[in-house]
């Protein structure tokens, strides 16, 4: 895949390899999180294969984009912070927000200790009200219908927070994507919303060309008067600066922005398609590591050592998680109805 894309951010992100260099600290921090996220996904796939889970879906291949996203978010609970309506490939974003990777293992193992759903939901289906991460649910693209609601609430509150919604390329065929464009751009009621499409060029097996007539998904935003860009989501610096530009725009202009990020899908769609590593897709982690080596920020040996250490830690964690309690059957009756309005700060 080509690494250069048209982007409206011509000076800061000329696209691909020419993107402005990140400061060493940040470059290393991103690497650390990307590596952790990759090792986590590898562990989840192994757990699935060993029968310690029923289904795997996740984000290997999206780390170069999803880690910067998590780092650029104004994280917190409530209207003054950013709301995130993510999809099921967002583990790296969660880690960048500060999530404990062991909690992802718990969700894979559907334990009672899984903080995201207490054994009720699939892997990668996060929910974290403390960080405004709205519950991720399986129906493709519904988050695009829901996100304008938090954005309108922010607009009404005069909040500095913005809403960020993310989904896949195939899912943009759903009406919810059009809903998002329409409701975000009504004249006089423009919403502070960053609409992200991570384009890995596939549905489950349907290639991009099998569903899209448009050249760029981001072009669809132009009809609504939105700022748009397509960026290389496999390149950390393009992703970081592309995201930063988009987020800054939404934060200051309080208007929608449609950002398409080209990414790889390194382990296929999910466990349903085998979850095997796909060799002919660009590996954003490998290429970032190569850059760090070239810039002499880390040696190959150091990075291998980090990987071994994280792998070992998560292996041990998975053994511990295996011993954690499963939810009791009767717990299905918990949380059917709320007694208090938590989201409004009661209780």
């Amino acid at each position, binding site marked *: 895949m080509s690494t250069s894309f048209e982007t409206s951010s011509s000076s800061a992100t000329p696209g691909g390899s020419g993107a402005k260099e990140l400061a060493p600290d940040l470059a290393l921090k991103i690497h650390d999180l990307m590596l952790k996220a990759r090792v986590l996904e590898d562990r989840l796939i192994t757990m699935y294969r060993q029968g310690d889970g029923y289904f795997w879906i996740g984000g290997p291949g999206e780390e170069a984009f999803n880690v910067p996203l998590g780092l650029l978010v104004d994280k917190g609970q*409530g*209207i003054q912070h950013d*709301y995130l*309506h993510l999809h099921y490939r967002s583990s790296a974003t969660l880690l960048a927000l500060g999530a404990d990777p062991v909690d992802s293992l718990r969700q894979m193992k559907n334990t009672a200790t899984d*903080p*995201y*759903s*207490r054994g*009720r*939901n699939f892997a990668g*289906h996060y*929910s*974290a*009200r403390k960080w405004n991460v*709205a*519950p991720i*649910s399986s*129906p493709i693209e*519904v988050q*695009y*219908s*829901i*996100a*304008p*609601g*938090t*954005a*309108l*609430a*922010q607009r*009404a509150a005069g909040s500095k927070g913005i*809403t960020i919604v993310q989904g896949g390329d195939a899912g943009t065929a759903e*009406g*919810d994507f059009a*809903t998002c464009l*329409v*409701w975000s751009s*009504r004249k006089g009621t423009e919403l502070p919303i960053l609409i992200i499409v991570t384009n890995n060029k596939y549905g489950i097996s349907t290639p991009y060309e099998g569903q899209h007539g448009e050249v760029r998904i981001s072009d669809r935003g132009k009809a609504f008067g939105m700022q748009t860009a397509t960026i290389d989501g496999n390149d950390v610096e393009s992703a970081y600066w592309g995201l930063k530009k988009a987020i800054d725009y939404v934060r200051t202009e309080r208007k929608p922005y449609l950002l398409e990020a080209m990414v790889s899908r390194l382990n296929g769609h999910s466990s349903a398609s085998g979850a095997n590593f796909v060799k002919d897709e660009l590996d954003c982690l490998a290429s970032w590591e190569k850059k760090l080596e070239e810039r002499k920020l880390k040696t190959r040996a150091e990075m291998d050592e980090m990987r071994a250490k994280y792998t070992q830690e998560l292996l041990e964690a998975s053994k511990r998680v295996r011993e954690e309690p499963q939810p009791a059957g009767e717990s299905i009756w*918990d*949380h*059917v*109805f*709320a*007694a*208090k*309005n*938590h*989201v*409004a*700060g*009661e209780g």
Partner: protein
Amino acid sequence: MATMVQAIRMALHVGESRLGVTDIFGEDVGPPLGGVFTATQGLKTAWNSPLDERGIVGMAIGLALAGRKPVAEIQFCDYAFNTVDLLKIAGNTYWSSAGDWNVPMVLMTPVGAGIRGSIYHSHSFDAQATRIPGWKIVMPSNPRDAYGLLLSAIVDPNPVFFLKPKALLRAKARPGEEIPGEPGDDKALSKMIDAPLGDRSKWQPEWPKLDDLFIPIGEARTARAGQHVTVLTYGRNVPMALAAADELAREESVEVEVIDLRSLHPYDWTAIKASVKKTHRVLCLNEDTEITNFGEHLVRRIVEELFYELWAPPALLAGAHVPGIGLADNLEHASVPTKDKVKQALKDLAKQVP
């Protein structure tokens, strides 16, 4: 006395002025129209949405997640079917997030036949709604209940369906169905809160000083006491059952007990049980199509739990399982329960002895 549509409007006014309602929206809900049935005229937080039901439900969920208190409207329930997976999400978010996020929204929508609405403006949604766990579902049969149930729906921290029986929206209230604080004089009330025809740009409603009335969700009301047969019903069929009961009392000396469920979920099993134990005969009455009907659920539970109390097989009188409601009078009458059908069903039940 207020009509149901005025009652709804007054409840929404109370909602936005003292119960925290922040957004009342849907297609044509804002000015100048104030809703195709005028339920949202003169409200300060009412606004027009794009013509997009999925967007309306999604927006309501998002607003609710951000701590606001939306009341959204689907213009006719017939158009809510394209939102079913979003309705599921509203219903399952609290559960799937194990109590992390609740979704405090109200979704109101007019339901049922009775206005010669033909195939796409006469559908029912009660059976459908009861198929979506995580929602509370209410349906009033008179203005007072509409007011009291809507106030309860507004303060509830969960998604609540407020199903509006279209055929009753403009019906006159009966004695005992007053809203606390409304002026007794219909004309005076109309002058205060009904938007004038023509130019409304300068019009402001003058709201009466209304009192709180919270009719608890999950509590039925005995609309008429009787000892021979129980009718379990709600919405539009309540006045019909009452009329049939009055006639049966006169003509056949059959005393029918009419239980207005008011809430379909959670429903008032205590009241149902007490009534069935008293009359030993029961008719479930509603106008949604009869196959996999909410009344069927009630029949099943009554058979399972109250079998030895029964002197006759419990019956369901519901809408015909046909794809639509026809426009012609005869077609509409043939598709939904009518007073005569209700009377006949009750008479048949009352006759039976074990």
